[in-house]
């Protein structure tokens, strides 16, 4: 086993010249083949784009966890045009124990660019992508509204753009995601939308019984109660907007919507009430039992049901995106409605 590999696998970031990244990675893996003690694996190229040291550390920690579930070549970029001019790179290895006690490892490359050298990042990242393997780009933080050429070049080889709209400070950010989804070959994925998956599952389960199916189009109103840290921040409202938009898009009719934002410690939806005319359906989060429970009562009554609702870390949400073999076809469908609702609220 090479010394370089042991250093990289122990968590040390090994500084390398950016012109020699691939060569150094090849050196790192050389010698592993005979021993069969380490399996090198990758299913995705995952590029995290950050602009601060804090985001860079967060992205590195998050993706090293997600690499255990979805092996990937991780490339973390920190690009700050306002910083001093530099272009530096490091390599490390993310390893975990796989079956039969073997170590499964994947590579992580860190690139830090400042000043005018930021413009060199897109071609450098492009050269480091493993061929014939899909590319995901996780944009950490708010989306850039300027420097369109830089963003466009970066996104050019990207199959999936991952954002977390909970950080968006303006409806225009949703507009950027919509434009990417509509006008480019890059599919959009939003972690804030992924967080709603269990709510969608629980809500869908209300309408699974054949006798409930026709009631989807009879939904008259919906009240969405969400817990937020700061009710004035746009990103905090997006989960509720997405839920309402999804319900309208899938039920194919406009629904009277009430948003109720409550200050609380854990962000996210707390309760959804559906007015079905002759009955009422409630989907509610039970944080102690970690489930969403559904209740339908009125003229129609169904057995209560639960959907597991574990608090998911960013790494788990990213894994969820990477494990979807096809891009999310629902997000492009609901984005226009969500934008419309956001504009109305403004």
């Amino acid at each position, binding site marked *: 086993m090479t010394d370089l590999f042991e250093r990289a696998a122990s968590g040390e970031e090994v500084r390398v010249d950016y012109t020699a990244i691939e060569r150094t990675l090849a050196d790192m893996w050389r010698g592993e083949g005979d021993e069969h003690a380490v*399996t090198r*694996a990758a*299913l995705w190229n995952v590029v995290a784009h950050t602009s601060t040291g804090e985001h860079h550390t967060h992205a590195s920690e998050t993706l090293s966890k997600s690499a*255990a*579930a*979805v*092996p990937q070549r991780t490339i973390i970029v920190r690009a700050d045009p306002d910083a001093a001019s530099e272009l530096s790179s490091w390599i490390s290895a993310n390893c975990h124990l*796989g*079956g*039969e006690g073997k170590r*499964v490892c994947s590579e992580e490359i860190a690139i830090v660019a400042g000043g005018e050298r930021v413009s060199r990042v897109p071609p450098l990242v492009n050269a480091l992508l493993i061929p014939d393997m899909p590319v995901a780009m996780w944009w950490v933080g708010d989306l850039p509204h300027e420097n369109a050429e830089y963003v466009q070049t970066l996104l050019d080889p990207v199959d999936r753009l991952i954002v977390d709209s909970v950080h968006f400070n303006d409806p225009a950010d949703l507009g950027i995601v919509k434009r990417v989804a509509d006008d480019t070959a890059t599919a959009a994925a939003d972690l804030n939308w992924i967080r709603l*998956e*269990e709510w*969608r*599952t629980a*809500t*869908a*389960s*209300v*309408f*699974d*019984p*054949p*006798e409930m*199916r026709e009631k*989807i189009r009879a939904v008259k109103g919906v009240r969405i109660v969400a817990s937020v840290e700061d009710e004035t921040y746009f990103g905090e409202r997006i989960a509720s907007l997405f839920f309402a938009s999804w*319900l309208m898009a*899938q*039920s*194919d009719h406009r629904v009277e919507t009430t948003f109720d934002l409550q200050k609380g410690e854990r962000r996210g939806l707390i309760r959804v009430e559906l007015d079905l005319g002759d009955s009422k359906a409630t989907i509610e989060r*039970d944080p102690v*039992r*970690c*489930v969403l429970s*559904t209740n339908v009562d009125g003229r129609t009554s*169904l*057995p*209560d*049901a*639960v*959907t*597991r609702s574990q608090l998911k870390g960013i790494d788990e949400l990213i894994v969820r995106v990477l494990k979807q073999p096809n891009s*999310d*076809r*629902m997000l492009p469908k609901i984005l226009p409605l969500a934008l419309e609702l956001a504009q109305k609220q403004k």
Partner: protein
Amino acid sequence: MSIVAPTVEPNPLREGLEQERVPDASCLVIFGASGDLTHRKLLPALYSLAHDGLLPAGQTIIGFARPDYTDEAFRMDIREACNKYARTRPVDDAVWDSFAKGLFYVQGDFSQPEAYNRLNRKLKECDETRGTGGRRIYYLAVPPQFFPTISELLGAEHMVTDPERGGPYTRVIIEKPFGRDLQTAKELNRVAVTTFRERQVFRIDHYLGKETVQNLLVLRFANGIFEPFWNRQYIDHVQLTVAESIGVEKRGGYFDTAGITRDIIQNHMLQLLSLVAMEPPVAFDADAVRDEKVKVLRALREFPRGREEEFAVRGQYTEGSVSGEHAPGYREEESVKADSRTETFSALKVFVDNWRWADVPFYIRAGKRLPKRVTDISIHFRPAPYPLFKKLPGVQTQPNVLAIRIQPDEGIALKFDSKVPGPTVRTAPVTMEFRYATSFGAEPPEAYERLLLETMLGDSTLFARRDEVETAWAWLDPLLRTWESDSRPPKPYSAGSWGPQEADALIERDGRKWRRP
């Protein structure tokens, strides 16, 4: 009065979710609910489905067996079983509370009509309280001799309905063995269709619920590169191995009347062989896939009368050691006759007489007390047509092998020759590997989870059809009769070895060797 099954559109709120189709709530009745299969496999699988949110609200499970249990005692018993055997263990309290609300027990003797009356009352009560709408699934986790009685009484007590006759669905799941020969299989099937229609019958072969077995279809028919050379022109031979390191455990009584050929080859291995050899189906649906599998079974060449030994070897393990532990001989096992002639190992050379596979041998072997537990399929390709490097010193090329590991450590490996770096031309075999665990991380669902869900959804693609079962028996029956009339004992092999020497000779006569899986 019959309940008319309504035709409903798919739930639009399911669009884009991981599970786009969720079955309608039904009552699943497990006959033999006090048994091992229920505790180790069925209820843990159902709990895991509930845990993953794949069961509909109102799904109801009723255990039906002779021992006296209350609902509460049954639930406690099952919770313990789920904690031991469920893929998603330990049991999650919230999921369990919801799951247990739909779990009931009815005590009864399978041969007593009153027991069915009690069961029927419970079923109707659940229709009222849990929205199961008259939909029924009967899982017969009982020995096959009970099937005629259960089937007859279900019919007599009007507990079977069919959407084509204006009622909600009833489905019945039958466990192997589907008979012990062609005659008994036909009799079982005849009994089944007096009460049920063929499309209501789900014959479970848990191998078909395994991810890697299903991946055989994906490997062959979702990739463009394999199918063009998946034929006699490029393939030299195929090997299939199902090896178990354990002996007969507590199944000695049953196994001694069956043998490994009936227990493993007639069902699991012929299913694997069908999937490897079948033509592309016209659609991925139950009948199209099974039509093609049956064609393979129909094309199996009969064993030539009087020359069976050239094509089939049966063995029986003697004392030895497996994984460093002492293992008794088969005849010393519990409930096994001291002079038993039952085979615990079987190796066959099989031909599929059709255009694609003419004269390509399929070597299949299954055995107990072999060195390790492994199920493996290997496709051995013909050597390169012209040995370009043969005259160079240090060059010994080897045929390519595509190995598909069904269990454990599921995956696919391709062996090919590569140049050894250096100034001279030397070659060495290298392996390109794909492993499920490495690439996809998460543990795949248990075979029973998939198969139970498919039954609820009414998709029988992964279940054996009547003609599949009968065609397999029709092919194997003459060989089994020859063996039964042979007074000689099976060839002995030491526990912990790869079977009797005669099994090696079977393949080595053709200039080939068993692959070490």
